[in-house]
């Protein structure tokens, strides 16, 4: 059943598509939206490793831009894993962004990982929000007061089964959550209570209205609603850990 429904893209809302491997495509403005790229992850954690995350993410975006004919790249926060990184890694991030700028405009919405400097040293100018095709685009570490639809990242939504996890999109009537672009995150289980609790701050009222679309490296799979998925995976409801909520409502520094 899954195989049959798989496609290169799936519509989440009017003019908004989910695209493999976890990008959002805004048709009207021809914008590719990527959330939580966590560039230079290896460097920020102090690892003596090549910064694969930067090269991987940039090449994914380049490929998508060429495929769709994009006019704009919009990063939905957590562009870098941390504001403190080595000069070499910073240069690599900057040159990656330059490569993207050669293809289309780049808009950087700041997230919590950019810290209070909003990543200025590495990223240059960032914005706190953007608006495309009638949707408000923010990182999602702060609750939204907007009555319009909102597109967020931050949550790294994923589904888990048998010890593996896969990134997913979540789409409700007024909210879309974009999965993390980084390969280094296990993600927050969309069937868990922590995830739904976080979405309530953006106006989500029922799991029945939240559609799940899983993304692999070349296809996307519509999986139905969160409540349907919960039943399918037979996951009993667990008391919320309150861990996420506390972090979530913390005022931004």
């Amino acid at each position: 059943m899954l195989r049959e429904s798989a496609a290169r893209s799936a519509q989440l809302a009017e003019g908004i598509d989910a695209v493999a491997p976890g990008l959002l495509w805004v048709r009207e403005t021809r914008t590719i939206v990527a959330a939580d790229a966590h560039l230079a992850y290896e460097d920020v954690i102090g690892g003596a490793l090549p910064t694969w995350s930067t090269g991987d993410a940039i090449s994914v975006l380049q490929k998508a831009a060429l495929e769709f004919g994009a006019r704009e790249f919009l990063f939905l926060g957590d562009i870098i894993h941390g504001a403190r990184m080595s000069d070499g890694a910073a240069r690599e991030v900057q040159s990656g962004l330059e490569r993207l700028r050669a293809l289309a405009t780049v808009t950087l919405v700041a997230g919590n990982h950019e810290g209070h400097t909003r990543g200025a040293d590495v990223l240059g100018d960032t914005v706190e929000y953007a608006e495309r095709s009638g949707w408000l685009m923010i990182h999602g570490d702060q609750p939204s007061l907007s009555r319009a639809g909102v597109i967020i990242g931050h949550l790294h939504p994923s589904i888990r089964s048998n010890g593996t996890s896969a990134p997913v999109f979540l789409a409700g009537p007024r909210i879309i959550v974009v999965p993390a672009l980084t390969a280094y995150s296990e993600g927050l289980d969309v069937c868990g209570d922590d995830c739904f609790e976080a979405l309530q701050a953006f106006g989500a009222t029922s799991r029945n209205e939240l559609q799940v679309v899983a993304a692999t490296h070349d296809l996307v799979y519509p999986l139905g609603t969160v409540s349907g998925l919960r039943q399918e995976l037979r996951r009993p409801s667990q008391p919320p850990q309150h861990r996420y909520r506390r972090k979530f409502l913390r005022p931004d520094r």
Partner: protein
Amino acid sequence: MFVTMEPLFDALHPEVARWCRDVLKEATEPQRAAIPLGLERRNVLVSSPTGTGKTLAAFLPVISALAHRRDEDRLFPRTFALYISPLRALGYDVEHNVRGPLREMGLLERPNSPRARLRRGRIRETHIRTGVRTGDTPKDERRLMLSRPPHILMTTPESLAVMLAMESYRKTLRTVETVIVDEVHALATNKRGAQLALLLESLEELAEAPFNRIGLSATISPLDRVAKFLVGTDRECEIVDARRLRSISIDVLAPFPNAMAPLATVAQAAARLTRDERTTLVFTNVRSQAELIAHGMAQILEPESIEEVNGQTRERQYDSRIGVHHSALERNVRHRVEAALRAGKLRTVVCSSSLELGVDIGFIDRAVVIGGARGMTPTLQRIGRAGHRPGAVARGTVIAQDRDDIIEAAATKRCIADAILEEAAIPRAPLDVLAQWLVGSVCYDRRLAIDDALRIARRAYPFAQLERGDLLACARYLSGGGVGEDEAHVRRLGFDGEALYGLGREVCAAFFENVGTIPDEQHVSVTIKGARHAIGRVEESFLSEIRQGDVFVLNGRTLRVKELTSTGIIVEPHAGRPTVPQWSSHLRGIPTALAAEIHTLRNGVAERLRSDCHPELVEGPRGAPDRAQVEGSAHDYLRTRYGLEGLEAGHVVRYIAEQIALSDVPDATHPVIEIYRIDRKQCAVFHTGAGRRINETLARAIATRIFWQIRANVQLTTDDNGFLLTLPAGKSMRDETWINMLHAHDFEGDLLAGLRSSHLLRNQFRHVANTGLLVLRRAGGKTLRRRALSWNSQRIFERIFASDRDFPLLRETLRTVTRDLLDAPGALAYLESIEHPVRVFHPKAATPFTFGIITSSFGDAVVLDDRSSMVEALHQRVQEVVERRAS
């Protein structure tokens, strides 16, 4: 003056010799052999049980040489002797024990005495100074140590690594003449030992003249290999083998009528044994058990210690004579217990393996080992604690908790009698340790040519087979090249193709903050509500298992969880049964040689019972061979080969007879598969008798094969005798399919596929990455706690796996997991040796050999006492089936 005919002491400096004659009077066997070798400055490995005077055997020649130096006015403020032990506590303990004799000989310099102040700043000294340099040493003491280096310096491998990297210390270490490595057995088999071997070679490069090495080891085998580990590949080493100086007597006690003893009964039995002794040490295998046994014994021996007021127990105000000692306790609590034991204030101390190592604890009458020590060497060490005085007989009793324990104890006894000990496996060229050593070798801005690095490293025994390619791979990784054409921006050293060089103070901080190979276990403290100080600590993983209101035992107290905070657990004293089992159970697997002996015992008894084997045997009906006669020959066998008699032998014979009645006993080339249905799930128990490591390896590879077959994940449980695979509900396999899983084709491939997403590999990669300085544990003076240390070891592992299979730390992780933790070569050899057809049974009840594995398949969720009642229930069922068949 009393003068003995001990000519040995004449060779020592007169003042040292006088002290020896006055105090020691007579030399022990290791001293007789080792002191002359030490005086000749030869390399020597002394292996003897604790309490045979080997520490003095190592130090007397050193002190004598220093006294001669003083006489010749050549006692410069430099370090001449280095003492290295794996335990910090042991360093302090030994310093204390060396200062005593030095003081009595009149050779000791007291810190800050007028005499010392008078001598300060002078080049030649008249008294010997000792010092301890570990991670605990305060800064000002370290500074003092630099201006006035101790002549005898006690340290740990990690501190030695730090000292060898710092120019200020390197100056003081150039004059080292003797290196004493204590507790060699605790170092040789792990990565700390590999690190030490490299460091000693670095020191050899640094020293003005070659130094001699004295290794002190408790019982270990084979000695020639351990000696090579001590001295390196191209030096000679004398071996003083005094491992069997004292006779050891081991009794086995089985305090249960049927199949297993509940913990309360075990505590009762232990209490009975300790009642008539002055001091007893009770060893358990699991820390939590130490707590529970101590609690049980206190209830019997000191009922007045538990005070109940208005239905609630109050904290004990009573001065108990039963102590608890294990590594989860706060250090001051442990020290108090050790001191009280030394002073004879405690009657009994219940401990985990924490008192196995050489901390001095005074005279012990009897050692009690609960459940068996799981190996010959630990048994010798534990029981060797008793009669801790040269010549005294060490008496020990093993209290068996179930029938497997009786067999294990009997087989251990046999192995010890045959001088079969576990073979020390020395890790082969661990690349993470090599990487760390390379970084330390070039701090801060030294240069080290690749050829020199290879030459030095190969002199260390664990790295004798080190390949140039591996060294270059490490160098490339550390210098930032690492993987593919990408460049890492974080570099640990520089490499120009010919030599490695340091990158200055800031980069080297990573080395100083992260030196060492001991994996970081995160702990949280346990505090009584309202109290200021913590009473102990538990592993962080335990925190996720407990909830408010849970009751657990720590430090002999039953405690209820009042509050869980991010920094620890707030508890209150509580009466009643614990509701949760303890934090992780550090059960060791038994060594292969012991597994083989257990195998021999089981098959020996089975053969005698099987002569005309039928279930009737147990009940002895007409026509079957006379039960008494058949059992008699089995009893004879157990008595003559294992010294097992009476109730205990009866247990063993009945145990194996029941197994034969329902299924069969596996032998070396014929495994037995038993298939059951538990909770509507099909499960298969593979009895191999190959030991835990091989079983774990087989289980993981076979689980992968089953996954390919039925596309579902299998649950696996392993123990020393076999492994249990449980299929998900609704899935089942035919007998032939189960048998077909046991083949050697592409075994390593299946094992690796099974390991790819496992916690075992992930955790190991985390440790290897920390040791190899890939990702740091500490940075900027702060320890990164596990949660804050937000790096995903699994994903990084997968990323490296996909990009570069030859990445040195990736290969090291796989080597550690498949060779050190699991036993892939052993498992493959086992699969190749299997002779078909393999026997498959569908027993009507769980067979006795499966009791252990079935109860452990429920995980730690089964509290220890529940486990014994569960085993009893299973045993009841076996008896019913056997009886029904007989009738």
